[in-house]
């Protein structure tokens, strides 16, 4: 009887939560609606003050970030398995271990901010709005893939996500250009331009940074530093491994990339800086990839299995976040298990679809080469073999 009364009381309180919030911080499940955490300190370059190291996380956000990170982890594992079964061919670069980066950054992005990244793009594609079927079916080359199967692993696109780029560093000046366009469009949109520690040694990065600083372009140059450029460790490739300072005159922040909340906070700070017309910023997110550079690389010839195990056990972004949620009663273990089950189901279904959906027809071989060709005949294998060009649907950026 007494317990029923309390429960009714609790329900009433929950409904009038605004006025009674200071008294009751528990939801009817006995869980917290929010919790506060400290992140690792940020390192700053040419900045007087940086992002806050004390962050607040709501239960709703916590569940969302957890689910997103689990989805990406499972999706990448599924992609790896599909590759081993030879259903995915070509190249496949997995994001496992780096989930906190894209989830944290997306959490602070507005709906009109843009992203461009390199080839380790599956996690980004998912977080920018393509569902698991869209990603996995693209990897297996089916028409339900986000690029109708024509792009594959490195060429996934969706609105405000400019890919997916195969050539190392080529996306850096593109990011500066997108930022210019956003500036001209009059929204305070920002372009997040991601690259790796290997690409940080490309000349075109410094060309892009110079233009961005000169013209105060709203671009955040983000180095996802996972410690290795393919098989070369950062110390053997870069004279300076303090990637957040490599912008020289561009202010920079060093972020612990395994902590989704730190990433979110730093991104919020950076977006605020860029969106208020102060020019570009550099962010170095220190993260780790569990798999090799790509599926052709076992990932153990240049680093020890102990090192990989150590990161998995002490710094895994999903495990760490899960512990935070459980220790502050933001969620129950059962709830998280339900999410895990749900994620598993979604990915399993997506894998089935990715294996069984149809491919596009051969007529698409000569589709979308040019915009308004004067002559729609396209040369085939021989000079007498003509195929017909066609345009399929409007472009996302038209």
């Amino acid at each position, binding site marked *: 009887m007494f317990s029923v009364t309390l429960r009714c009381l609790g329900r009433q309180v929950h409904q009038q939560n605004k006025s009674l919030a200071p008294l009751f911080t528990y939801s009817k499940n006995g869980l917290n609606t929010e919790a506060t955490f400290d992140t690792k300190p940020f390192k700053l370059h040419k900045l007087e003050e940086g992002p806050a190291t004390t962050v607040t996380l709501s239960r709703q956000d916590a569940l969302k970030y957890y689910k997103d990170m689990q989805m990406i982890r499972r999706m990448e594992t599924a992609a790896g398995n599909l590759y081993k079964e030879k259903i995915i*061919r*070509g*190249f496949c670069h997995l994001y496992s271990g780096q989930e906190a980066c894209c989830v944290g950054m997306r959490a602070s992005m507005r709906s009109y901010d843009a992203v461009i990244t390199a080839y380790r793009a599956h996690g980004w594609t998912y977080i920018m709005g393509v569902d698991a079927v869209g990603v996995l079916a693209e990897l297996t080359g089916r028409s339900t893939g986000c690029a109708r199967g024509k792009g*594959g692993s*490195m*060429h996934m696109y969706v609105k405000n996500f400019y890919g997916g780029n*195969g*050539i*190392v*560093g080529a996306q850096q000046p593109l990011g500066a250009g997108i930022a210019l366009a956003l500036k001209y469009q009059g929204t305070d949109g920002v372009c997040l331009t991601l690259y790796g520690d*290997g*690409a940080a*040694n*490309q*000349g*075109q990065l410094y060309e892009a940074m110079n233009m961005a600083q000169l013209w105060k372009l709203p671009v955040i140059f983000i180095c996802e530093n996972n410690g290795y*450029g*393919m*098989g*070369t460790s950062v110390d*053997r*490739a*870069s004279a300076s491994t303090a990637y957040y300072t490599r912008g020289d005159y561009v202010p920079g922040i060093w972020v612990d990339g395994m902590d989704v909340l730190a990433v979110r906070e730093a991104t919020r700070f950076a977006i605020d800086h860029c969106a208020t017309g102060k020019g570009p910023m550099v962010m170095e997110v220190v993260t780790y990839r569990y798999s090799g550079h790509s599926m052709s690389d076992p990932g153990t*010839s240049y680093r020890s299995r102990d090192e990989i195990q150590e990161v998995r056990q002490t710094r895994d972004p999903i495990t760490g976040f899960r512990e935070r949620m459980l220790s502050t009663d933001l969620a129950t273990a059962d709830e998280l298990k339900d999410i895990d089950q749900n994620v598993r189901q979604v990915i399993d279904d997506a894998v089935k679809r990715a294996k069984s959906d149809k491919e596009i027809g051969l007529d698409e071989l000569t589709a979308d080469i040019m915009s308004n060709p004067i002559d729609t005949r396209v040369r*085939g*294998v*021989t*000079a*007498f*073999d003509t195929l017909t060009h066609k345009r399929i649907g409007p472009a996302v950026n038209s």
Partner: protein
Amino acid sequence: MALRNFLTRNLLLNKCPLRISQRLSHFTFVPDTVSASEGETQRMNLFQAINNSLDLALSSDPTAIIFGEDVAFGGVFRCTVGLQEKHGKSRVFNTPLCEQGIAGFGIGAATAGATAIAEIQFADYILPAFDQICNEAAKYRYRSGGLYDCGSLTIRAPCSAVGHGALYHSQSPEAFFAHCPGLKVVVPRGPIKAKGLLLSCIRDKNPCLFFEPKILYRSAVEQVPVKEYTMPLSKADILVEGDDITLVGWGTQVHVLREVCQLAKDQLNVSCELIDLVTILPWDKETIAQVGNLNIMAFLSFSLLQKKFLKWETLAI
């Protein structure tokens, strides 16, 4: 005339009565052989032959250095295996990820006296270095009136289709460089040619680009002479004698064309001549100019037409 019409309309793969049971990307590697006078031979595939050639270059030339992405441990295609252990870290070393930097660095080293052998990890990535190669390397001797040159520069890169490479691990960029005077561009068809041609490129006094068809790295196996030898650049090889039509190709396509020659003979009773161009630039004008009935690549056609316009029935493709 009727034969030419028949061939041009029907020899080409998809309209042809020929039954091609294999997929278009399949080919059979046909190994070259050498005469017994070449001495002892060893079974080598393409990357082993290239490795051997690089080893000989480093052993014979104390100024030779090899650099590129991941070359120290042996390279992503194992072409430089063992070279750092044998010749030392100062002569075989890794560069960071910067193709334009690698090419420019190589030009500088070559100009100052080193025999610089640069590796671009995939020919698809040579494009950022295009400016350095075509504007700096190719024109150095000319613009300095002969005072300086980077002739001791050789740039090697794996090229061409491998089946699963898609946009950025399959390109054959030799045609981009084929219009740049001052450079030499070479594409081997197998291990024996590769070993000799690479050594020739390294020793040639002009900057050379050596494109290695990556699909042949493991699949092309020949009995390669173990001694040191070079092969002449700008010398095309007539691989199959024939009277009715001439096919010119290089690299992997040479083996595809061999099959075409055989199919044409078996099923159409047409006698094909097959020429491996070997050096794309400067190409062997003498050998090509002698052919009678030519099925020719576009960039060759203009200069040949200048020479022998009236004599041929040519088909520019």
